[in-house]
Structures are given as C-alpha cells and as structure tokens.
C-alpha cells in the first residue's frame, strides 16, 4: 500500500512515452508578424481593468479599457464577452466571417486560489453548428494567467494567412504574433512543445507558469472543434488539458489559422487578484476545503472519480443515454460505473485543474497505451473521462472503459467535442441500424451500435482531412446529416427527423430528458442550444414556478 506523502514530487512516474523536441530549431523557424509592448499593471479587486484586442488579418494589437460602467453592467466572464462581441460583429456575421471573434474572458473571482472552482474562464464565439453565439466555460491555467498577465479578456478577430501563435508574455510585458510552420497541430504534442518552448527555464516550476490554448486536426475538418486549455502538472510532468467543448469554438479557432494561444506569467501568489478582504476569503475557502475533505467521499466522490460518479446515478434514474437516447438505462451499464474508472485513474495525486481546487474533478489515466490510429502503441496521459464523455460512449453503446478512454484521448488530441461527436455518432448508428444508412453510404464504415473501431476510424479520417461525402457531412453534425439524408430521399422523413437529437443545430448533451418537462423545455429554449450549463437556469426556474 502506498501512503500519502511517501513519494516526493520529483519521483512520480507516469510511464508515458517520452518525446524530445528540438525546441530551439522549431522556434528559429518562427517569423514575428507583430509585436506590442504593454505596461504591466496590477489586478485591483479582481479586475485588470483592460482587455486585449488582436486582429489577425491586419496584425493589429491594442488594449481596450474596462470602464466602471462595464463592470457594473456586465460583471465579467460571459457578460464581458457578450459586450465585446456585440460591439464587434454585424447582423450578417457568420462563424467563418472575417469579423467573427473568438473571446476568452475572465470574471473578478478568476484566479482566486483559496476557493475551489475559481480557475474558470469563458470562451465565446459565433458557433458553426448553430450560427448563433455560443459560450463555454473551461478550467485550466489560461484564464487566471491571462488576468495576472494584465488582461480581463482577450478577443481575436480576423484570419491569419498561415498558422500563427499568439503569445501573451506577462513576464516581459509583450504580445507577439508569430508564424508556427513546423509545430504539431494535435494537442497532446503541441501543448508539450509549446510549454517547453515558452517556459523561461527548463524546470517544472517554470513550465507550470505557461498555459497553452490549442485545437487539433479534427477541429479543422469538422464543426465539433473544441478548445484545449493546458495546465502543467509538476508531478506527472506533462501539460494536461481541459476542454471548452461545445458549439465548435475550436473550429473557429482553426478557421482563424490559429495554431495556439500561449500565456506566460512571471509570478503570482494567493492574493494576485487583490481581493478586497483576503482574510475573509481565506476563511470561507478553508471552510469549503474542510467540508470537501469530510463529506465528498460520502456524497459525490468527486475527489476520487470526478463527474464519472454520475453514471450510476443516471443509470438508476433512467437518464443515462443509451443507443441514441432510446433507453435511459442498460443492463451492461454497470461495466462503466465509476469504480471501473477508479481502477484506471492514477491515485494519490492532487488533480485540480486550477491551484487550490480541492474538489479536483479532473482525473487522468497515466501511461495509457493507445490502441488505434497514428499514435498507436504510444503511452500517453489521458485527461478524463468525465461524465459527458462516458455518457457519449454509452450513447454509442461502448461498454468497455478502455475504449471510452481511447475515444476520449483522440477526441481531445484532435480537438473535437466528445459530446457532439458521441451524440452524432449515436444518431448515425441508429440510422445505420434502420438501414437508412449502410456501409456503402457511410464510406465503408460499419456503424453498428458498439463498433468502437469504426468510430475511431471515423475520427482518424476526419483528422486526416478525408474528403469522402459521408465523412464531410457527418463531421458537421446531426442537423447537416438530416438534411443530407432528406436530400437523398432515404428512409422515412419523420424517423430521420425525430431520431436525431439536436436543437438549433447543436447536439444534446448526455442526459435523457424524458423524466422532466423542465429539462426538455430547457434544452429546447437555451439560448445557445441544448447544453446542460445553460439548462440549469431553466431547471431552477421550474423549481421556483
């Protein structure tokens, strides 16, 4: 048995395949397109009081002030994002228009280390799936570091001609746009390269002060692109990732020819965002830490298995989506209950995606041997799977935890959203089962329920940029697939329409809604499309009413 505190930090081993990059050579190929120096400021009561604007078409970089009125009206986070987006786009702007922006914003509490869950940032853009504004919140170090580097938000407009990296260097007070011709695109390698490249020293402590936002090859070729926010783990010695998944923000990112967005901070401490009352904040935070310590193991068990604990609950309440939402529970579901993942997760290492988040729902499978595709045989650290990913897999009828981890790994590194991919694939599988799609119509893929091989093959083909008709339609999600099936006149129109679980063009997240009218209404009415974080507002409303 391993006791806590027995292994010193330097001696943790993941067993991953080691990569060595010639970082200097990679960097020497970079060409600086624009450089901007700014005066480093301090954060006052949670606000850095300015935002950063970057235009990739014209290579302009400028600062915008955050006014008191703006703080009062919009608070931060999504509010700031919507305001900045509103000011920049026109009614005719579409996801791939020049003036569409990608925003990453933070709120006044962002970067608090004492209170669990304070590392979140918000990402906004016009979504390719829905053509309306979509927002996602995400963990990782980027949001807090952006604030400590001196900005409450970053907005990126325009499109670059070649792959570029934007570097926000909080150490020297510089913003740099540079080309990145030789870097990897897929996240698990790219974030490793860039963390190494931009860390000021070759130490783990220095690497921990860098965060990289990236998307992969899959984001480029589908509408499911997600943004991967890195955070360097000093014990595992790898940059790990959290995803802003929904709505295809990664697709917008790659459409702008962004390879990565890097932020680096000089130093920070527990009061870097200068709260008005740090003593009270520390007290409240400590109380919550204590409650988590005493109660989490009896309640959600987040510290041990993360959101995966929901699988058994959903299965028991008939809400676990199975075979494209046809069932809410399944006899085989016990194979993917959280204890099965607990066996795979690496233990006794703090897993929080921002310093001090003791709820620590981000789990990893270390030294996982990849089973398919271009990285077959490599040993990697896989972040997750979380509930939504497991739900997406049960929706496709995968009942083997290892295939779920494999699906999770490739979705992450290719930069595609596990929820949209899972829900869409489940729909294609149902259509396949009815004979509306078949092997010939699916470009040779045998999409029966549970065929994990075919799903992974599908992902690899997307990443390779396969131009087959099925692949190019299918990678744009359920809505486009319905239209394509209608156009070809296959099957019964009503079945085709009803079986595809989407609203506004965005696929449902992984909850069966039949048990709750409020949930159904919520999914249909949420502004950005059916997503559980917007849904909660409707659920709480239904309780009040």
């Amino acid at each position: 048995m391993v006791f806590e505190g027995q292994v010193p930090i330097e001696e943790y081993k993941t067993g991953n395949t080691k990569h060595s990059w010639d970082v200097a050579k990679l960097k020497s190929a970079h060409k600086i397109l624009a450089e901007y120096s700014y005066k480093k400021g301090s954060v006052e009561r949670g606000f850095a009081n300015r935002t950063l604007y970057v235009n990739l078409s014209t290579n302009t970089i400028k600062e915008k002030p955050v006014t008191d009125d703006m703080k009062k009206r919009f608070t931060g986070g999504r509010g700031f994002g919507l305001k900045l987006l509103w000011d920049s786009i026109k009614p005719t702007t579409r996801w791939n228009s020049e003036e569409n922006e990608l925003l990453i914003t933070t709120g006044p509490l962002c970067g608090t280390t004492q209170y669990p869950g304070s590392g979140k940032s918000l990402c906004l853009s016009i979504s390719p799936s829905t053509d309306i504004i979509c927002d996602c919140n995400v963990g990782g170090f980027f949001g807090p570091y952006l604030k400590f580097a001196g900005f409450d938000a970053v907005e990126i407009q325009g499109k670059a001609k070649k792959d570029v990296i934007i570097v926000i260097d909080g150490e020297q007070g510089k913003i740099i746009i540079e080309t990145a011709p030789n870097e990897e695109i897929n996240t698990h390698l790219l974030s490793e390269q860039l963390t190494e490249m931009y860390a000021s020293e070759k130490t783990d402590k220095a690497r921990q002060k860098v965060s990289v936002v990236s998307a992969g090859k899959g984001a480029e070729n589908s509408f499911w692109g997600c943004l991967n926010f890195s955070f360097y783990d000093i014990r595992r010695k790898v940059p790990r990732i959290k995803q802003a998944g929904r709505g295809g923000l990664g697709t917008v990112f790659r459409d702008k020819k962004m390879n990565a967005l890097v932020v680096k901070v000089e130093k920070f401490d527990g009061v870097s965002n200068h709260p008005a009352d740090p003593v009270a904040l520390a007290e409240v935070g400590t109380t919550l830490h204590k409650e988590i310590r005493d109660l989490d193991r009896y309640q959600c068990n987040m510290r041990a298995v993360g959101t995966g604990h929901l699988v058994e609950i959903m299965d028991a309440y008939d809400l676990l989506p199975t075979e494209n939402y046809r069932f809410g529970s399944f006899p085989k579901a016990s194979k993917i209950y959280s204890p099965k993942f607990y066996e795979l997760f690496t233990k006794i290492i703090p897993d929080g995606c921002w310093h001090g988040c003791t709820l620590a729902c981000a789990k990893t499978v270390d030294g996982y041997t990849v089973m398919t595709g271009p990285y077959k045989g490599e040993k990697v650290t896989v972040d997750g799977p979380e509930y939504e990913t497991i739900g997406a897999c049960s929706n496709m009828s995968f009942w083997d935890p290892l295939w779920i981890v494999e699906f999770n790994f490739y979705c992450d590194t290719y930069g595609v959203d596990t929820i949209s991919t899972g829900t869409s694939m489940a729909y294609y599988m149902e259509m396949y089962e009815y004979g509306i799609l078949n092997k010939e119509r699916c470009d040779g893929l045998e999409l029966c329920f549970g065929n994990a091989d075919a799903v992974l093959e599908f992902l690899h083909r997307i990443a390779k940029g396969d131009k087959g008709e099925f692949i190019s339609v299918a990678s744009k999600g359920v809505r486009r697939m319905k239209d394509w099936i209608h156009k070809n006149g296959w099957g019964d129109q009503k079945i085709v329409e009803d079986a595809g679980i989407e609203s506004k063009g965005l696929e449902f997240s992984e909850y069966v809604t039949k048990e709750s009218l409020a949930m159904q209404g919520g999914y249909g009415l949420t502004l950005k499309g059916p997503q559980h974080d917007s849904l909660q507002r409707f659920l709480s409303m239904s309780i009040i009413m």
Partner: protein
Amino acid sequence: MDHPTTVKILTFHSEKCKGCLECEKACSKVHFKSSDGKEKSAIRITKNKIVYHMHVCNQRGLCLDMCPVGALTRRKNGVVLLDKNICIGCQACVGFCPIGAMRKSDVQIEPFKCISCGACVRACPEHALELTERPIQMIKEVVYHNYKQGV
C-alpha cells in the same frame, strides 16, 4: 534519492504543564518575530477541564500530496516544510490537515506549521515538551478520519 527514515516530533508531558504558554510565544517569535502566541503560533496548548492538550503537527506529511505547486516538501531530516516563496496560498493543506495542525494567520496568506525547531522545548520552564525521534513509517500509519479537529 535517499529518503529520510526518522523525524523529530514534539512529545508533550501534560502532567508537567502549568499552562504558562511560553511555548506559544516562543513559536510565534520563530514564525512572525512577535511574542503574541495564539494564532501566530504553530503549537497550541489548550485546557480540557483539568488536563492540558497539545495541538501540533505530527510531521505525517498528508499535506505533501495536497500542494498543487510543490511548496511542501519533506526535508532530509524528515521534517515537512512549507516554502513560502513557492506557496500560492490556496489553503488546501490547511483545510485537509486531519489534525488541524497546518495554521493560517491573518497577517499573511501563506500558512505555517511546526518545523520541529525546538524553540518551544527550550522555552518551556517545566520541561513538559520534548523532541523525540520517530520512524516516519510509524507516523504514517494513522487512520485518516478518526482524528478530532485541532484548534
């Protein structure tokens, strides 16, 4: 790397204690250059009806795994030490210490803890405190949640 096998921890002879709190004052001098004691001291003496109790770190090192930035390390002499320059003040170690021995004072965001320096031992006029060498392996075999909260 050689791992320490023993560590010096404080042992308390409650029958000798008179409750003068000289140990607390000495401790706060080490940590904060003030002789306030109380919340600025890593060692705390409380009186439960007639018996005095000591609350102090037992160098078990559960907090080592809580620290997200690696500010807590076990030194060569076995003592668990917090590096204030690395600490980012998240209070995870404070909240998760099973015996409440990781302490936080209002004057700084970084917590502090007993470093087995022996200042309290030297300050005690009754010789109620003693530093004793213990195998680390034995300290670690403590059941996590049977502990009572400290002060």
